[in-house]
């Protein structure tokens, strides 16, 4: 798989050196072993030689591997150093990971669920998580860094060609870990500036459902993921569990607001307390916009 970042070449060099040497060593060792097994089989060699030691050999095969692994260390470190030296003029993007979706926030406040970047310009990532540990992994860039709740990790890359590159969550984060995918789209700088400049205004309700990660767990088409679908929810009658006691409710505005701010207070029967409370994550206007959409579904 071809590299697509400014440092992927350096990483690949380390790969080729380390894996290449390993393959050669493996073939060599195996060949020697098989040769000995055949050459010194009992029928051919009834009288073994009792060789207990050989200082020259022991020294040789301690010193040579030492040199070899030091070279490997150096190669690994050389690529790593570049990965860690974040250029000062890099564009800043905040990566917000949550179960099980990605949101990318640009300096001007624009948000997107795919990471759109200008080809040939360095992008500095500030990686955060609002629940458990996730890991930002773009194989084509040879880049991976964890998103750890309670702290901000840093990484950077510069895409060297236009294209769409898979973005995976690489740290196990629960039920839909393997669906926590997105794309990095690297586009010509000019197009990017245009895209970034277009002010889409305060995102309306439908887009908010994607942007805030609701659709990682809920659906809008009636199919079932790990949370109740939004379709037909408004006005329906449901059984919820409050403090361990089941009761019937009718879904109205009040209930939805409460379900969003404090989802675990009334658990929908048959579901688990998986939804993160949105108290600090949504503004009042956003909640209103979401409720408007949910009414329509």
């Amino acid at each position: 798989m071809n590299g697509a970042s400014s440092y992927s070449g350096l990483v690949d060099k380390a790969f080729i050196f380390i894996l290449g040497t390993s393959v050669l060593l493996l073939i060599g060792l195996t060949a020697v072993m098989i040769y000995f097994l055949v050459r010194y089989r009992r029928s051919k060699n009834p009288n073994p030689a009792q060789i207990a030691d050989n200082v020259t050999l022991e020294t040789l095969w301690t010193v040579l591997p030492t040199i070899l692994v030091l070279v490997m260390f150096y190669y690994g470190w050389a690529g790593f150093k570049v990965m860690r030296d974040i250029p000062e003029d890099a564009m800043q993007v905040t990566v917000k990971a949550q179960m099980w979706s990605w949101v990318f926030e640009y300096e001007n406040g624009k948000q997107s669920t795919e990471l759109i970047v200008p080809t040939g310009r360095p992008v500095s990532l500030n990686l955060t998580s609002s629940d458990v540990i996730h890991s930002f992994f773009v194989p084509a860039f040879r880049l991976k860094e964890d998103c750890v709740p309670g702290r901000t990790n840093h990484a950077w890359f510069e895409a060297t060609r236009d294209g769409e590159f898979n973005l995976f969550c690489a740290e196990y984060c629960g039920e839909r870990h393997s669906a926590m995918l997105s794309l990095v789209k690297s586009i010509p700088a000019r197009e990017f500036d245009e895209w970034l400049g277009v002010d889409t205004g305060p995102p309306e309700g439908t887009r908010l459902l994607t942007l805030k990660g609701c659709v990682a767990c809920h659906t809008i088409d009636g199919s079932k993921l790990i949370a109740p679908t939004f379709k037909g929810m408004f006005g329906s009658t449901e059984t919820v569990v409050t403090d361990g006691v089941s009761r019937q409710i009718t879904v109205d505005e009040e209930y939805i607001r409460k379900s969003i701010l404090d989802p675990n207070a009334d658990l929908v029967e048959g579901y688990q307390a998986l939804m993160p409370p949105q108290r600090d994550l949504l503004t009042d206007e956003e909640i209103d916009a979401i409720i408007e959409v949910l009414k329509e579904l």
Partner: protein
Amino acid sequence: MAHSNAAATGAYGTTGSYLNTPAGGGLKSWLTTVDHKKIGLMYASAMFTFFLVGMSLGFLIRLELLEPGTQFVSARAYNSIFTLHGVIMIFLFIVPGIPAILGNFILPLQLGADDVAMPRLNLASWYVYMTGAVMALASLVTGGGFADTGWTFYAPYSLNTNTNVSLAVLAAFVLGFSSIMTGMNFITTIHRLRAPGMGFFRMPLFCWALYATSWIQVIATPVIGITLLLVVMERTLGIGFFDPARGGDPILYQHLFWIYSHPVVYVMVLPAMGIISEILPAFSRRTIFGYKAIAISSMAIAVVGYLVWGHHMFTAGMSDTARWVFSLLTFFVAIPTGVKVFNWIATLYRGSIEIRVPLLYAVGWIFLFSIGGLTGLANGALSTDIHLHDTAYIVGHFHYTMFGGAAIGMFAGLHYWWPKIWGRMYNEKVATTAWVLIMVGFNLTYFPMLILGIKGMPRRYQDYLPQFHDLNFLSTIGSWILVAGLLTMIINLIRGARSGSPAPDNPWGSTTLEWQTTSPPPLLNFATPPEVTTGPYDFTEILRQNNVEAGK
């Protein structure tokens, strides 16, 4: 000790098989025995039961990955299945495995002793082990179902999931005690009960390996015990150790976890290295090459192995300095390991080699373990590990080391000592077939995972992108061959133990003390306590006998 007096007078327990002493004792005589040999076999029966369960789960994981999308198990079930697979294979099978089964059976025999130093503690540690195992199984059916955290129990996920993490973690905690007890017992046994004339540097290398292993068990296990207890306290009492929402630090959890779990890799593999060091000389009829280098490198690995845990955390957000220091130290553990491999291969040089089943497993082991070690180099180097971390490459790599290294080493040891243990031989033809199936199946299962990881497929994925299909398909086919081989091997061993042809006392022409007593040994191991006048791999006598036979 009371035992030794009896042995000296040739009384009770110095003749006949330990299997029939006391005669007609039935199940109770097993459950209350303090004989290290029977305890070893009790561990074997428990552990291989768990191994079969773990193997079936591994088979199921592969089956689900046959095609992209959901085939047989939901994502939620998949997550619990790989967690249970990992927990069983690590905590119930491979960490305690070789010391508890073969260490218990063989160590006192190799030292020329009549039992371990603390036989009652030995039995107690079996009960502690079983308690932990029962707790792990109980957590399957109680609470919110089996943990879905992976065997690593990373915080804060493990603190928030509503599966039954607390009980699973407590089970691991209890199992740790069993490890510590066995470790202490072996250290004492090695210091106190060596036969007259057996200095440390006349000990067989399997004893050396168990010695190094025991120290790691005793020193490292408390760290994981405390860490897991902290997880339970955070889950039940809400004390904020690791969850940032409560003011804790999730990275601290990772440090504590790997401070134990890296060294424990050597608990798995050092005893296997010890087994290989016994088998190679026996079937080459020559002394091992570089005895001291092998013995000392065991200890070196045990010591340096403590300082490299950070290589599991290169992407977690440690300081850049910490990252390169851990990388450098990791490469230093590679050196003693490499030295050992060279020594083993050199042991074949100008030997008089007889290719029998244990030797096949031993050379298969060298091949698989070499791949395990060499694939580890790319994990030790910084820039490459950043790409490989948490991908299928890691799953491939650690199966080559833990399964190819530790477990295949155990299988080699079982085939080597089986005639001593039961006084009966298994069918060598069937054993060879099983070996071929295992070698082919193994590589077909795990080599594709290495490539998948390099191509960027993350681990612990129940579903994957279509571009990863071919190799996953191949790997699943491989797992069928592998499972067929493993089942063939196990059935063949059991049949051998029950109805195999009688085995002589020293079927392979080996030199260490366990082969001087009868097969199977008497309760107190030796009719006359042995004395040691040479190093462990001195073939003079064996070769002389051979020449006498050939001459007549």
